[in-house]
């Protein structure tokens, strides 16, 4: 029975003179999202509202699911259109609407009419009270509550008359592409896809880098990362995934540096490489899935030591979250099941039994000196062999 959706957006409403940029971006993203759905749709922006109208038969569930991936949407209201054929007829349509959407008809409600077309014979107040009467008459179980109703029954008088009362929560945030671009360090784990999602939610476009270490990590591990990027790209739009072969760098560090510092030094080189690609691709920051204290390389001391090799800001949206909170989001955005597939990633293959948890920056720098002879060449080779995969 629904033939359109009214899209509610909260935050971009407050963006002052830039508002139209955000609204245009949101319309664009909505168009992308409904393009994935069966049926044809028209997306329009009028008088501070965005409508998604179905022009053909469509799959309600599928369309809602796809709209739920569009950052910037705070609510999705399924709308019923009726022709304006007089007030009598409107009363009948409303009764039918209430009967279908609330079959038990035992809720409290409030009618909220809006006249976009001011030549309608009744004003908003009149519509409110008269429609209220019609509903009370038809459904004795319904009661009016103007302060906190269960149902806010919206009636908008335009060319046609729009009726809606349900609000399906959207993901919130800001439309993709309104906030610049950042480089996500994507592993096969639970955290990094969530970190990418969270920054993308603020309107940031995401590119990603994955460190591949054949033969220590397999083609399947790489495929898993591509799959994760694809799941995240549902929200973020296309992701440019850079696959960097890290094996030789890793082995060289292993050869030259103390084993308990391997992970930390390795991460410093990952950050350096990620930053290099980020700068070349006009990214304004790096994103990692780090959370304080989760593993040895994510203590405050370790984070400080990895952080100091970068000049770009490093965004760590999960920094204060517990694992379970992260898992909740991973489940919500559907990356969890893929993340827990058991393929080894390059952070774990050579991990020492007791890696340092409180690395000293001076000591780490001194040990990195052991790498002077070949490391630059190795990093250069790795960058030259950057494999770019466009994930969408």
């Amino acid at each position, binding site marked *: 029975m629904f033939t359109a959706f009214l899209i509610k957006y909260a935050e971009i409403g407050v963006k002052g003179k830039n508002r139209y940029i955000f609204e245009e971006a949101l319309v664009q993203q909505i168009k992308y999202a409904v393009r994935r759905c069966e049926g044809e749709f028209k997306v329009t922006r009028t008088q501070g509202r965005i409508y998604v109208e179905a022009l053909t038969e469509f799959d309600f569930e599928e369309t809602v699911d796809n709209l739920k991936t569009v950052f910037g949407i705070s609510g999705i209201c399924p709308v019923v259109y009726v022709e304006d054929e007089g007030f009598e007829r409107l009363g009948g349509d409303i009764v039918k609407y209430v009967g279908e959407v609330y079959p038990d008809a035992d809720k409290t409600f409030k009618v909220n009419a809006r006249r976009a077309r001011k030549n309608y014979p009744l004003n908003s107040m009149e519509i409110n009270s008269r429609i209220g009467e019609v509903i009370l008459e038809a459904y004795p179980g319904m009661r009016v509550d103007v302060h906190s109703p269960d149902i806010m029954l919206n009636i908008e008088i335009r060319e046609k008359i729009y009726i809606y009362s349900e609000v399906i929560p959207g993901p919130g945030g800001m439309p993709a592409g309104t906030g610049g671009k950042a480089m996500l360090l994507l592993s096969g784990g639970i955290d990094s896809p969530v970190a990418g999602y969270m920054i993308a939610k603020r309107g940031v476009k995401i590119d990603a880098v994955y460190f591949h270490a*054949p*033969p*220590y*990590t*397999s*083609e399947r591990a790489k495929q898993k990362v591509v799959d994760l990027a694809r799941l995240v790209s549902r929200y973020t739009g296309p992701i440019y995934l850079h696959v960097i072969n890290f094996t030789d760098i890793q*082995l060289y560090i*292993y*050869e030259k540096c103390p*084993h308990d510092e391997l992970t930390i030094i390795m991460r410093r080189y990952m950050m350096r490489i990620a930053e290099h690609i980020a700068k070349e691709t006009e990214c304004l920051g790096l994103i990692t899935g780090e959370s304080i204290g989760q593993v040895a390389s994510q203590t405050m001391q370790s984070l400080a030591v990895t952080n100091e090799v970068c000049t770009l800001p490093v965004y760590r949206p999960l920094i204060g979250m517990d694992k379970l909170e992260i898992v909740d989001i991973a489940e919500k955005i559907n990356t969890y099941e893929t993340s827990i597939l*058991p393929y*080894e990633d390059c952070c774990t*293959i*050579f*991990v*020492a*039994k007791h890696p340092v948890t409180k690395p000293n920056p001076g000591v780490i720098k001194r040990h990195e000196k052991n790498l002077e002879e070949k490391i630059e060449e190795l990093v250069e080779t790795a960058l030259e062999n950057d494999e770019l995969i466009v994930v969408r």
Partner: protein
Amino acid sequence: MEVYLDNSATTRCFEDVAALMTHIMCNDYGNPSSLHLKGVQAENYTRYAKETIAKLLKVNEKEILFTSGGTEADNIALIGCALANHRAGRHLITTAIEHPAVMQTMRYLEDQGFHVTYLPVDDKGRIRLEDLSRAMRGDTILVSIMHTNNEIGSLQPVAEAGALIKKMNSRTLFHVDAVQGFGKFRIYPKKMNIDLLSVSAHKIHGPKGAGFLYVNEKVKIKPIIYGGGQQNNLRSGTENVPGIAGMAKAAEMVYADLDLDVDRLYGLKQRFVDGVTKIDHVKINGYTGRESAPHVVSVSVRGIRSEVLLHALEDRGIYVSAGSACSARKPQPSATLKAIGVEKDLLESTIRFSFSVFTTEEEIDYTLRALYDIIPMLRKYARH
């Protein structure tokens, strides 16, 4: 150079088999149950396939049941016989090193109230007949023993076990999972007292999705799949005509020069074993000579995780398996390797090489050279 040494996981389809199947799918695509000519043509393929397979096993063609593969054949054999014979008893016997298709089906039957005895194996992966005879009870309705182990290539004394079972209890059924043995050995169920025998097509250069179960006509068995009543009601569902015809063709081809091919495989295996054992701290699991399968070698390489060695070989175009391909999905140490007492450090350092008629001496030598290169290099970076 591409060297495929994972033939226990699956094999390359013979081109003649693929051509036959394409022809059937595009031209003779009828449903064998249809009454018209197209149906009859299709039925001719399945009839011919039955004849071919029955002849190879020296059994009656009515005793061949087509399935979707080895796993389904094992499931029908075990569950079908358990369902049909549970009044005679609720005890089953199998070995500790069966393929999951048997092992997990046994676990299911345990949940259904059956009792299962798992026979241990010696350090070469063979059961002892004394253990079998001790495990046999008055209410043992079925014994299931694999012919050839998929991970280490050990052979079970199937004929002796068959004789022993029938001597102790003529009503006990004997099932043999011959997925790895068919196409490498001549297996004659009637002579070996085998009542049920599972085979898969894609292990013998046939297509995936096809297999068969030999069911001795005297066996009481119930279907586990219901429907249109095809194949004497025992396995409903339209027959996979191209798969069945392809399987029969492949079987015909592997048995055409069996002795020659098997001799050659044993030669290749010996060449490989001689070469690989020159490397320090490398151990072969199970027997290597004629007491073992001609096409499987299980090698433990101390200090290197199997997955890493596998990918390093892959990098040079050599495809092998870590443990067994089916267990590569869940990273648990292999039950077979544990059962033959492989020490803990080596459980995750074991690689399986498996050969086929397509394997050449040149490929074996190329693989050995790769191992001579890779193993010392990987050992340098062992995890501490």
